[in-house]
């Protein structure tokens, strides 16, 4: 599978360094290694969800409990979570670290992903969610760390878009 194991490991190590101890996830091709690494780590709790919006509640519970968490999902999963993001995370000032695989943009071969690719950034902007891209290996550690720092200091959801350049090897 041409999903980058090296870069998935790099992202995972950074999550550990950020003291993340709980990860909620729904499978998607680009996330397979990240989810497996989480599952195999006894220091990490992985929650496999039925729908991504559940992760907003789970991360809120973890925040109340004093545990740092992250959400792994596809951009379509982000879209499926929007009510939770607005009427829980924004309303109650809950920090969320959302790692979102950015499908449906340049280079996408799957026709079914393309509409979501168009809508992702306009939606993030409309919701006022700070976001940036993870597209260069050398920036991974710093950007994830900075995203988490902002989420925790501002008590709001922050999105990191995992791009094809980083996640896919072909």
């Amino acid at each position, binding site marked *: 599978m041409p999903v980058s194991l090296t870069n998935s490991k790099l992202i995972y190590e950074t999550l550990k360094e950020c003291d993340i101890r*709980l990860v909620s996830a729904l499978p998607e091709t680009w996330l397979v290694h990240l989810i497996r690494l989480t599952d195999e780590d006894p220091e990490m*709790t992985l*929650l*496999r*969800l*039925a*729908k991504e*919006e*559940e*992760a*907003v*509640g*789970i*991360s*809120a*519970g*973890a*925040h*109340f*409990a*004093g*545990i740092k*968490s992250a959400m792994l999902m596809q951009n379509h999963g982000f879209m499926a979570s929007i*009510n*939770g993001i607005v*009427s*829980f995370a924004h*309303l*109650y*000032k*809950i920090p969320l670290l959302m790692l979102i695989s950015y499908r449906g943009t340049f280079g996408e071969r799957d026709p079914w992903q393309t509409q979501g690719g168009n809508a992702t950034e306009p939606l993030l902007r409309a919701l006022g969610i700070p976001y940036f891209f993870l597209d260069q290996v050398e920036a991974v550690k710093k950007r994830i760390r900075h995203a988490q720092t902002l989420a925790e200091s501002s008590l709001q959801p922050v999105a990191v878009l995992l791009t094809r350049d980083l996640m896919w090897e072909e």
Partner: protein
Amino acid sequence: MLRLDCLRSVYSELENYLVVTIMGAVAAELHSLGHRPNFFYLQHAMGLASSTGLGLALCLPERSVIVFDGDGSLLMNLGSLTTMARYRPRNLVHVVFDNESLLSVGGFPTATSAGTDLEGIARAAGIPRAVTVRSVENFRTALADAAHSNELTTIIAKVEATGPSGYITDLSLLENRFQFRRHIQSLKKS
């Protein structure tokens, strides 16, 4: 059976739990009995109270967590039953007040008014213990049994579709949220 009577019947025991409620009548009625710092009222985001309780229970395995859910909220996030069942924290009790109605928006009947059986759905989702109760006495007993069973339990409490005249309390959402988190952090230190 009235939801308020159910809540009143177990109010003193709620001291031992971290409590998460849904919005509307459940939040307003519990608040009317007397707010405590271990109560969190999720005043929107329908469906996510159970997910919040799951997150709390998994992160704080030595604390008891109770969620006061409703039929309308649970029907919006039925997948949550499957996630709860998958991780089945022993310290979580999931109460669903089923009034067969979206009461706070004017009484729109939910699918449970037309035969949908939430206990059956919970059981089939894999929740280890699922019961339905129709009297305050049975509600009290079901909660005590759930606590003693040391297993994830969903209690469907069939209640009348009546509630308070208003839902706004004098507790701001953010005050509630910060107080709840601070309370949990103080428990961890003690």
